């Protein structure tokens, strides 16, 4: 596949008009970063993670495990949660070491 075709595909994502011969093969999007544009947080339901930074030991387990890259970092330090992309799955709270317990899932007035 010609990567530039993929680029064209992304540019026209709002109104896909490319013929099948021009489209990126298999519908692959040959660039990263598309997930950044899709705000999963818009449909977060039930609960949201709340980070108590003073307890955090910056082991980065939450950052590694978060399926949406919603744990924000500054260098190697956790700085917060990107709620635009956090879907409230609770994995970060689960993997945060129990003795540390820096992340609490709290109920949110979502659509649950």
């Amino acid at each position, binding site marked *: 596949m010609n990567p530039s075709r993929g680029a064209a595909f992304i540019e026209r994502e709002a109104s*896909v008009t490319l*013929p*099948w011969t021009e*489209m990126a093969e298999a*519908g*692959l*999007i*040959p660039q*990263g970063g598309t997930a950044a544009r899709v705000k999963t947080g818009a449909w977060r339901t039930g609960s949201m993670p709340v980070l108590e930074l003073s307890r955090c030991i910056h082991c980065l387990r939450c950052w590694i495990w978060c399926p949406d890259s919603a744990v924000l970092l500054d260098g190697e330090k956790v700085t917060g949660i990107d709620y635009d992309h956090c879907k409230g799955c609770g994995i970060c709270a689960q993997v945060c070491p129990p003795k540390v317990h820096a992340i609490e899932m709290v109920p949110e007035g979502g659509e649950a």
Partner: protein
Amino acid sequence: MATTEAYRITERRRVTMTGAEATAEAMRQIHPDVVAAYPITPQTDIVMRFARFVADGVVQTEFVPVESEHSALSAVVGASAAGARAMTATSGPGFALMHEILYVAAGYRLPIVMPVANRALSGPINIHGDHSDTMGSRDAGWIHLYAENAQEAYDDLIQAVRIAEHPEVRVPVLVGQDGFIITHGMEIVEVLTDDEVRAFVGEYRPERYLLDVDHPMTVGALALQNSYFEVKRQLAEAVRRSARIIADVGEEFGRLTGRYYGLTEPYRMEDAELVIVAIGSTAGTAKDVIDELRGRGVKAGLVKVRVFRPFPARNLRDLLGRARAVAVLDRADSYAGLGGPLFAETKAALYGLPQAPVMTGYVYGLGGRDITPEMIAAVYDDLGQLAERARADHAAVAAEAALSVRYLGVRER
């Protein structure tokens, strides 16, 4: 590694082995990066042998034991997207359980190769050979190759890697072999040297893959009304295109081994008037019957369909266009469809030919029921009578035959 050396094949050998054994041997020589599989009869012997190669350090393949075939193919999809040469193997109900993921593999254009020990589907439960499994998912977008014997199961698997990974194809390939008849039947198989196989399949260099962190990409994006259709149209074209690649690879394999492969294999078709079309091991039985009938002056012939997808319609038109009567043998029923899948499509391929032969379809061998040389001889007898009747009123006889499906080897009364 010492064990690896002990297993190395450095000279071509003629070995007595089963189809399953030959398949595991081909997998060892191909040396895929990842194999994920769940054991199911009669495929078990393939994966069991390959798992032993892994355990013994004969291959450095990452082997992923999973809890179901749905997961086996899912793991292989992930591995293939990540950039690995990935394989699995399955059979019957296991193949059926993969149905959903078959489409995913094809839709993402992942060059996965999968031996399938063709087996009947339940119910009632049956573990024996028929084609109900792969024919049931014939429209998933995979390339279908079918072996006639253990040698072909071995040869086809090696070629499948080249076909699947060809930059103009990139479509998953399954290689069917009749359960038990081929998987567990002992035959003499010529095994190539490890170096020959490795040179033939070459090193896998995917153009793009998920672990290439310098070129990030998204696999599995949502494609709704605005793009799904185009992606599937691409797939259809790739499968169509693969016909030429399959022929080229078969030709190149022939130059290496003396065993040439095409989409179809005509047998004594030069002047054949009564012709059987069949897939798999039954084609081998038919060849013997033909030799016998030829000795008695019957102009019998066979067209073996090796490649079912892409469907070799043009080859069939060329080969069958001059026949008087054609019988298509299906080891799978379509239950009140227009005959088994091979019959229906062969008829479609011949539509519009000015001199189309009279065609009739037989369903046979379900659940591993034997098909004997006598049964095949009886089919040629039927064809002779059909051709005679057609002399008087071709149109009427042809129409009646095209709509009739007969059951070969079932107890009628």
